[in-house]
């Protein structure tokens, strides 16, 4: 497997800035680090060969490889701020919606060392305080709301656990189940309140709850359960109750990590490990679907024992990127115990210096959002049907075995949590073991079988092979700086599968082409999903797969709007920014077995595009070879479609004309699922090689195929696909304006 894994504190850094490396041993005793520029990461012997470049920089000698571990699990932590020590009579209460009961003890709310409510290993609600332990008779149900309370009265000496099963139909006359015990009482030494967890013996949160929690509250009095059912519905009323010590309205400051107490004591807290906010609460009945309009209905947080935001490993070392080091894709290489074959690569982008105009006119957009979306993905392991989509057996590389053995590393947005709810978040503050050169994947097609970053190195290798100087900028840079960053370049080149974009990014890219920029979209299924960053949580990304798109899960009814920004999640196509408008083509189908050539159309002879085919033989078939399935058109393919925004004057220069029946229609296009929407039958399933000029003097060239770059790399980058791509780059890098053609009336 992997004897050492690591991550850096940033994926984008400029020369002169520092980068920290956090590493952990998974068997290694020691390691040495060096810096490499990554040029071509695919190790397929049919390909151009692995290539990197050592950078002369001393990163220190041998270091001991310390074992560090992952600590997933989300919760809320509220410092007591001295307000808990006087507790005598008390009530703690919350409305809960369990989603996983699997034989583990789980905590709903705890004042560690004083009182706790939760669900025990048998699935029954439990409470403990003053050395007494109470258990409800009925088991908790997954997918149902329950109000749980624990109260104590010193006068009666009675500790009371009460649970009401809040089934909608009977919500007015629910009879709570009550369990009581005599207790002597005692001093409260708790210094904090935890929601969805308790403190473990090692001081870390543990005993995580999987499910939703709504309206947790703490009272300095015994409050009858029936009163709680009435009080908790109305925060305004509740906040005026004299005995209220804290009540947390999770709908406040929804886009941050802050948890707000509505009581006058303001016992605010913070979330830990990024649970899902903006989730439908106890009172949601479908009245509204947008949390921004009725936040009072979105008062729940969905916690998972598998959430992970920041691995928080101690820094092993920090170094400065040398001034003058050219922009590119680099990796800190960690070689464990002298075994270069077992080296771990912490890949990052060295962006151009900030605040000054780069000398380069070509930039590669390093698609960190798409890398994050797929970070540590487990499609071939968790989803048994992946093999059908691959059309061949699943191949596990060593990093897959590591993922299988260490699911605590956190998931990609292709997985579901252990409770089978979708993973909304992916973070870069943890090792991303598939963001490395050399690694193989599941979806890369018969041949090299590389995906995302390693597939993108086919493009980096091509740039190297033609001697093209270029900058590397990341999605995060583009999100933050937009056209201020893009304005320096004539040409922007994408990766093979730039699928995930924030609104800032989409708008910057559109602004770039509108203002004369030239976009080379060398991939497939690009600009597809909406994602969001969070200003309060650097390094994490949200994706809610609403409504349509090829997706492994749905966010749940009423939960289609992102918590980070309030944006409607799902496809850019459904959000007024169809990829066809930006780049002429949009996702139409996928299959991960074999790829096909393109066949030139009559439009390829148009004088507007003669530069593209300069020096290419007269054969009407191009790209009948490649490392990604044996053809240039495949894996995920896009079609031109005027109804989806493809410009009127766009030219479809070539198309694939058939695919295997692994290739099926996307859900957003398959409105009526009849059995003729497959690769051997439906003309709509094709990759369209597309070109168009923009009004600002710019132009767009789109391959509409992930497999394109695998063909560029064929025969040492000496082939017609590489030639075509180079032709486009040369002309696109020429500042001479492109002129819009005169459109004929149809």
């Amino acid at each position: 497997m992997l004897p050492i894994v690591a991550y850096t504190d940033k994926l984008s850094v400029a020369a002169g800035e520092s980068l920290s490396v956090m590493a952990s041993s998974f068997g290694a005793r020691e390691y040495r680090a060096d810096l490499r520029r990554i040029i071509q990461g695919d190790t397929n012997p049919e390909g151009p060969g692995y290539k990197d470049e050592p950078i002369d920089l001393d990163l220190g000698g041998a270091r001991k490889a310390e074992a560090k571990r992952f600590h997933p699990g989300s919760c809320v932590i509220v410092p007591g701020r001295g307000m808990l020590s006087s507790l005598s009579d008390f009530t703690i209460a919350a409305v809960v919606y369990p989603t996983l009961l699997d034989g583990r003890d789980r905590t709903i709310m705890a004042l560690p060392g004083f009182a706790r409510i939760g669900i025990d290993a048998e699935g029954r609600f439990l409470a403990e305080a003053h050395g007494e332990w109470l258990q409800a008779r009925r088991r908790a149900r997954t997918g149902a709301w329950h109000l749980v309370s624990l109260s104590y009265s010193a006068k009666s000496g009675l500790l009371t656990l009460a649970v009401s099963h809040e089934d909608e139909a009977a919500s007015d006359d629910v009879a709570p189940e009550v369990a009581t015990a005599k207790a002597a009482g005692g001093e409260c030494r708790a210094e904090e309140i935890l929601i969805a967890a308790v403190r473990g013996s090692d001081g870390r949160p543990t005993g995580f709850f999987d499910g939703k929690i709504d309206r947790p509250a703490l009272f300095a009095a015994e409050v009858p359960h029936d009163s709680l059912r009435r009080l908790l519905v109305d925060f305004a009323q509740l906040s005026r109750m004299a005995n209220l010590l804290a009540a947390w309205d999770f709908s406040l400051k929804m886009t941050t990590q802050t948890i707000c107490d509505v009581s006058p004591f303001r016992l605010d807290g913070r979330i830990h490990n990024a649970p899902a906010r903006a989730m439908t609460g106890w009172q949601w009945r479908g009245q509204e679907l947008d949390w921004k309009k009725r936040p009072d209905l979105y008062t729940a947080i969905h916690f998972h024992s598998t959430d992970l935001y920041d691995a928080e490993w101690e820094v092993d070392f920090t170094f400065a990127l040398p001034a003058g080091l050219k922009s590119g894709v680099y990796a800190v290489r960690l070689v464990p115990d002298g075994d270069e074959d077992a080296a771990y690569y912490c890949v990052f982008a060295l962006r151009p210096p900030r605040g000054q105009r780069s000398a380069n006119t070509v930039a590669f957009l390093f698609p960190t959002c798409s890398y994050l979306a797929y970070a540590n993905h487990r499609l071939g392991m968790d989803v048994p049907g992946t093999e059908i989509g691959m059309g061949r057996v699943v191949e596990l590389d060593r990093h897959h075995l590591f993922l299988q053995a260490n699911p605590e590393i956190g998931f990609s947005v292709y997985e579901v949590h252990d409770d089978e709810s979708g993973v909304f978040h992916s973070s870069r503050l943890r090792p991303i073991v598939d963001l490395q050169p050399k690694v193989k994947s599941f979806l890369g097609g018969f041949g090299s079988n590389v995906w995302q970053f390693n597939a993108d190195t086919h493009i980096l290798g091509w740039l190297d092979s033609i001697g093209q100087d270029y900058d590397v900028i990341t999605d995060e840079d583009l999100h933050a700086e937009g056209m201020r960053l893009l304005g320096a370049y004539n040409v922007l080149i994408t990766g093979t599968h730039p699928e995930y974009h924030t609104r800032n990014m989409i708008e910057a890219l559109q602004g770039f082409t509108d203002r004369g920029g030239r976009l080379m979209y060398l991939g497939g299924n690009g600009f597809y999903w909406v994602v969001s960053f969070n200003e309060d949580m650097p390094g994490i990304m949200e994706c809610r797969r609403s409504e349509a798109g090829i997706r492994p899960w749905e966010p749940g009814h009423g939960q289609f709007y992102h918590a980070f920004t309030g944006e409607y999640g799902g496809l850019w196509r459904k959000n007024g920014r169809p990829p066809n408008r930006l780049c002429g083509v949009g996702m139409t189908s996928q299959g991960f077995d074999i790829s096909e050539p393109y066949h030139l159309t009559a439009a390829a002879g148009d004088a507007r595009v003669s530069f593209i085919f300069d020096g290419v033989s007269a054969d009407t078939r191009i790209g009948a070879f490649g490392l990604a399935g044996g053809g240039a058109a495949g894996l995920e393919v896009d079609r031109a479609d005027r109804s989806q925004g493809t410009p009127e004057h766009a030219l479809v220069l070539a198309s694939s004309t058939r695919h295997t029946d692994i290739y099926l229609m996307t859900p957003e296009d398959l409105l009526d699922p009849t059995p003729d929407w497959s690769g051997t039958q439906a003309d709509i399933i094709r990759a369209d090689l597309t070109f168009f000029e923009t009004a600002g003097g710019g132009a767009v060239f789109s391959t509409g195929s992930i497999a394109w770059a695998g063909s560029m790399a064929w025969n040492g980058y000496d082939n017609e696909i590489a030639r075509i791509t180079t032709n486009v780059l040369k002309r696109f890098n020429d500042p001479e304006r492109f002129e819009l053609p005169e459109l004929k009336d149809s």
Partner: protein
Amino acid sequence: MSRYKITRDDLEFAREFLDDPVGYHSPGLQRVLNRMRGPAWEFKYVLVAQQRHAIWLLAKLPKARGSQVEIVEDVIYTDLLDAERDIFRRRWRDLTGEELDLSLEGTP
């Protein structure tokens, strides 16, 4: 869960697969493969790359996340298409209770 039951009537598709394991398949063969490669975990064979692009071990994937991938002893492939054929034969046996024997094509 798949309801398709693989029988000797599918031997013609087995022959087709053994001739050309990856790429275009007839609808009949695709249906057989969908059964073999679908959601059932009992015969979820995978390859473990011992040396990328050169040597693969046969393994079975466990259903439970975090469980150990189970290596099948003494099975090593040096060609991916050979691996596909062998896994097809194993699944044929798992699903029909019979060894794959193309000479039985046409027999009841």
